């Protein structure tokens, strides 16, 4: 078996281990609450009119689901429910938790996707240029911009952008679509294919919808990208500086390769490793970032049902659901970034050094 495949397989094996570790800890936290609270995870449908009816239903659930059982029994039962797609019932949304989260996923995915598409190339490019021109003007500009980007927290940046571009200039409104486009999207002639409005609009032949969706995406995407752009750029910059001092670069230059070629092909390739590594480490913070940005811009993604359910009753099912959901989003993301490292690092492909 080629070493690269072996490495990928080993990384794949880590995913379920991490998943079970995290969910076990999660259920451990939930076990701190009395069984009555956990029973609400399974309180589905039907309105409980009286306190007694509710109490009876809860008692029955505790009995049926064995919520008094020891931790390992309960955890394995819960986790198998989760894996089968039974994530519990949210009393606030009055709907199935998994269904609520999945319904909101396309909006969040669209926002995240555009942000990554914006920040990854920009972060790498600006890091390379800043490292190449170390201590000269491009580097100074990059460093000051990156400093500002990391010092201004996303939610404040969002507020500033809203003040200027929405309240002041009326260019980019919050939300996901204007009212008329919303009506159009809800109508039966509009077919949801990918769930991403910018693409669905084009597929349905409604370019106006795509344009409007893009207009609503500009501010959140910029806000979300900026902090991560700065981090990525900084890591790339210092990696490039380190690579440029190495003998292989001198050798490449000595063989007559142009500076441009040495940097963009040889140095960048090795600088990609720390960049990928740092991106994998901040994958989870991207989720937090998306959440905050969605709330600031009133973007109807996954965060909306969660902030809604906060305002009302305790909604344990939703809390658990969101936690599992975000772990399930972050894990594959980290796996991809991990596996990409093997493709970039020649040492791992040779099978010499590697995990």
């Amino acid at each position, binding site marked *: 078996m080629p070493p690269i495949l072996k490495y990928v397989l080993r990384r794949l094996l880590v995913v379920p281990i991490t998943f079970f*570790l995290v969910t076990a800890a999660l259920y451990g*936290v939930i076990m701190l609450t009395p069984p*009555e609270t956990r029973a609400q995870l399974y309180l589905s449908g039907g309105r409980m009119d009286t306190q007694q009816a509710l109490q009876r239903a809860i008692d029955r659930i505790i009995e049926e689901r064995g919520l008094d059982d020891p931790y390992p029994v309960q955890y394995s039962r819960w986790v198998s429910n989760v894996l089968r797609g039974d994530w519990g019932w949210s009393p606030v949304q009055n709907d199935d938790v998994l269904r609520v989260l999945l319904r909101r996923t396309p909006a969040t995915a669209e926002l995240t996707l555009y942000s990554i598409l914006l920040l990854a190339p920009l972060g790498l490019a600006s890091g390379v240029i800043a490292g190449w021109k170390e201590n000269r003007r491009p580097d100074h500009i990059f460093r000051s911009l990156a400093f500002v980007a990391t*010092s201004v927290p996303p939610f*404040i940046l969002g507020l500033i952008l809203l003040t200027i571009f929405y309240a002041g200039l009326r260019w980019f409104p919050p939300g996901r679509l204007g009212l008329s486009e919303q009506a159009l999207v809800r109508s039966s002639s509009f077919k949801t294919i990918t769930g991403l409005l910018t693409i669905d609009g084009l597929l349905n032949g409604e370019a106006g919808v795509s344009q409007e969706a893009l207009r609503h995406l500009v501010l959140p995407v910029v806000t979300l990208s900026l902090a991560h752009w700065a981090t990525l750029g900084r890591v790339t910059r210092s990696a490039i500086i380190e690579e440029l001092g190495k003998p292989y670069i001198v050798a490449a230059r000595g063989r007559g390769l142009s500076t441009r070629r040495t940097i963009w092909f040889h140095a960048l390739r090795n600088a990609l490793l720390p960049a990928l590594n740092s991106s994998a480490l901040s994958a989870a913070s991207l989720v937090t970032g998306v959440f905050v940005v969605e*709330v600031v811009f009133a973007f109807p993604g996954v965060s909306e049902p969660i902030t809604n359910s906060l305002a009302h009753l305790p909604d344990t099912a939703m*809390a658990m659901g969101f936690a599992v959901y975000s772990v399930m989003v972050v894990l594959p993301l*980290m796996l991809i970034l991990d596996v990409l490292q093997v493709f970039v690092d020649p040492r791992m492909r040779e099978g010499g050094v590697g995990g």
Partner: protein
Amino acid sequence: MKRFFRFLSDQQNQRALTIVALYILVAVYAPTLAPPDNPDEPGIFKVVGRSSDHTPHPPGNGTLLGTLPGQADVFYTLVWGTRHALRLGLVAALTTACLGVLLGAISGYVGGTANHLLLRVTDAFLTFPMIAGMYLFREVMTSLTRTGDATSLFLTVMQTLRLDPVMLTLILFSWMPYARIINASVTRLKGEEYIVAAVSLGASSFRIIFRHMIPNVIAPAIVLVARDIGAMVLLEAAFTFIGIGGVSPWGMLLVVGRNYIVGPYANPLAFWWVYLPATLSLILFGVGWNLLGDGLNRLLDPRSYRGR
């Protein structure tokens, strides 16, 4: 000592220290700068007019920075928010650092299976977004307080340590970088001659870890603490702002301020004093600690210092 003076003579470090010192001074002299109604239990809001008056009033008329709807003094909240921010930042960041450094150092020193296990746990924590943890702990806390189960172990621990869900989340989901850095350096140090010498002289593990290893590897953790103080305060403000937990006074000013930027009464230019002071003090707080972290980084890591 020479390095210390070089640190002080750097213009950027002077700026950083000035900003941080300013916040500390404001926090210390908060009672004089903005005397609370009840000196024994200063709240985070002070009403300076009829609380039924829902129009924010501009600066003047006895208030330095105007009032919020409900006539709460903006300046008062700003000043007392400094105290809250510094306390939260220092406590959370230092606790996080201690936790991470201890875990990383001990498991790195012990090595073997224990170390592998810690690294797995670290990775597991890295996959978990802070916002989900925040929401989860908040749910558990509210349901525990609602059912009035005061005997619960969790509540008792939280109360004796005077932790709230925000603090708990910040600490629980920030220690991993410390543990990873310290762990890697301690593992590398284990083979060094002076450590082997200390072992053969009969030094205890405790002594080796705390006297010989940690002082040698602590530098990057100090840099991280400086940055984390700023970052954690900003995060708490963000959590407060989106309403998922936290009681950051600056964040609360922005919650009110948002209604004047995008809400139905939106008129950001007319009501600037509602949100601008909190925005600026949050940004400056982050800038100050970030600059300090960068300065410490240049001081403690000579490799990254390449003139200017």
